[in-house]
């Protein structure tokens, strides 16, 4: 099978975008093409374009987004598809791009993820995201993703002794990391005491879905991110040295959360990561840096256990010991994570992979993990019913 790498990345700042979904996607795409040294116009060499977006049709009322993007960027007659896999759409699109190249059908694939969500109010956004839950058994009750995260957190706290303060520590770490990431939505780091112990902590940091607070939940962000994938056997065409896609794994779990056999496990995270490790021929201890899907702080902790960084029930102890900070044993969410960098659904999986590319290229500036050689990203859809894990490695000379 052909090997595949990433030769270009584009990541404009997440936050509030004033233009259209299309112009937002184009900005990220052009930045990635420029980074790869691909000239637009005749002879661009892009064989396939994949666009990941969850709400393009439902929120922005635009369908056939990839077909429109190809023409707007004058990349005709490249193949084009729009990919929807909930909040895991981004990593799914990269996976499909990988498959297109590995199969021999394409040499070069452009993947662009994007979401323009800030046209919605906060509760409209929550309601939109909730449409991926079960229509009768969940959505009809008013159950939302924060509701499931709250109920999950309460179980984990009871079983393993995780505290609200542990969750706040994850949040503060990720906000501090985002201060070094110019692409991050939120560039203000709270003090741990201010959101946990101080007299007005509950005013600054009220409950959203008990026991989760505002600082445990990702913001609503607009944003787009793009990568250029290529076959390693054509890498000479590009301006940048590729970062290799060493492994990809994906797994699904029950749609209805109440039907999970072990309600404190994230089965699909475990299986997706295992498949990615197997494909890459690597183990958890080989990973130097990780982007884990922290739409809710509890998820970063439990995912860090499911991917094998820490024993079950001990992820929060590692947070207390500082092992997941930059400079710690296994830095997690150096980009700021979904919590501080933002979570524009369809862009998130692509954005996580871009952070790994920057770390493996040694271009992560103030948040650089020293001598990072291998990185793992976990992109989490639904409440864990569809998860994609991606492992990237630095290509040695």
């Amino acid at each position: 099978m052909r090997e595949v790498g990433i030769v270009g990345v584009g990541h404009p700042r997440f936050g509030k975008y004033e233009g259209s979904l299309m112009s937002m996607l184009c900005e990220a795409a052009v930045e990635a093409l420029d980074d790869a040294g691909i000239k637009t116009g005749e002879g661009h060499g892009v064989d396939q374009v994949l666009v990941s977006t969850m709400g393009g049709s439902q929120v922005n009322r635009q369908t056939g987004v990839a077909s429109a993007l190809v023409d707007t960027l004058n990349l005709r007659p490249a193949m084009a598809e729009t990919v929807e896999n909930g909040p895991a759409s981004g990593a799914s699109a990269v996976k499909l791009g990988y498959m297109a190249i590995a199969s021999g059908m394409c040499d070069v694939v452009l993947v662009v993820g994007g979401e323009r969500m800030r046209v919605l109010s906060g509760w409209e956004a929550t309601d939109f995201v909730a449409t991926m839950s079960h229509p009768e058994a969940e959505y009809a009750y008013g159950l939302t993703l924060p509701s499931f995260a709250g109920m999950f957190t309460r179980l984990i706290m009871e079983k393993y002794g995780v505290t609200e303060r542990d969750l706040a520590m994850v949040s503060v770490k990720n906000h501090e990391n985002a201060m070094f990431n110019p692409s991050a939505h939120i560039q203000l780091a709270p003090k741990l005491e201010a959101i946990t112990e101080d007299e007005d902590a509950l005013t600054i940091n009220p409950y959203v879905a008990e026991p989760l607070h505002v600082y445990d939940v990702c913001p609503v962000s607009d944003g787009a991110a793009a990568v250029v994938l290529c076959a390693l056997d054509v890498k000479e065409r590009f301006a940048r040295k590729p970062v290799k896609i060493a492994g990809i794994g994906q797994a699904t779990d029950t749609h209805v959360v109440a039907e999970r056999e072990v309600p404190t496990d994230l089965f699909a995270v475990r299986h997706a990561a295992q498949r990615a490790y197997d494909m890459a021929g690597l183990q958890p201890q080989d990973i130097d840096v990780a982007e884990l899907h922290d739409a809710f702080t509890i998820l970063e902790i439990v995912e860090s256990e499911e991917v094998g960084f820490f024993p079950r029930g001990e992820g929060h102890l590692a947070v207390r010991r500082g092992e997941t900070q930059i400079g710690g044993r296994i830095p997690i969410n150096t980009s700021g994570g979904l919590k501080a960098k933002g979570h524009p659904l369809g862009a998130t999986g692509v954005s996580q992979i871009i952070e790994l590319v920057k770390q493996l290229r040694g271009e992560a500036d103030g948040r650089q993990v020293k001598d990072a050689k291998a990185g793992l990203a976990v992109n989490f859809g639904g409440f864990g019913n569809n998860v994609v894990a991606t492992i990237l490695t630095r290509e040695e000379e």
Partner: protein
Amino acid sequence: MEREMIAYQCIQCGELHHPLHYVCRKCGGRDFEEVPLRGEAKLLTWTKVYNLPEGYMKPSLGFGIVEFENGLRVAGQLDVPQPKFGMKLISTVDVVREGVGQDYYGFIFKSQEA
């Protein structure tokens, strides 16, 4: 009108499902029989949510996941002042979401004292 919630029992192996599956999650069978889903349930976990989707005119709402005596676990709304792990609840069926022209009925779990 009396509303009732339904579980779907696999005719081949007896496995209970709620909501309806097309294929039995245990044996792969495809035929199900409807049985009433009601009675006492045990509270497994819960939350109180403050940012509610469209259509709810209240500041917060309780939700829980419970286990019925037959072993089925389901999520529903929770109307209990002080929830505790493992507490016994009664399952009631009422409007859980008001829709345009159609209200949605579902489980609202309440404490037994009430």
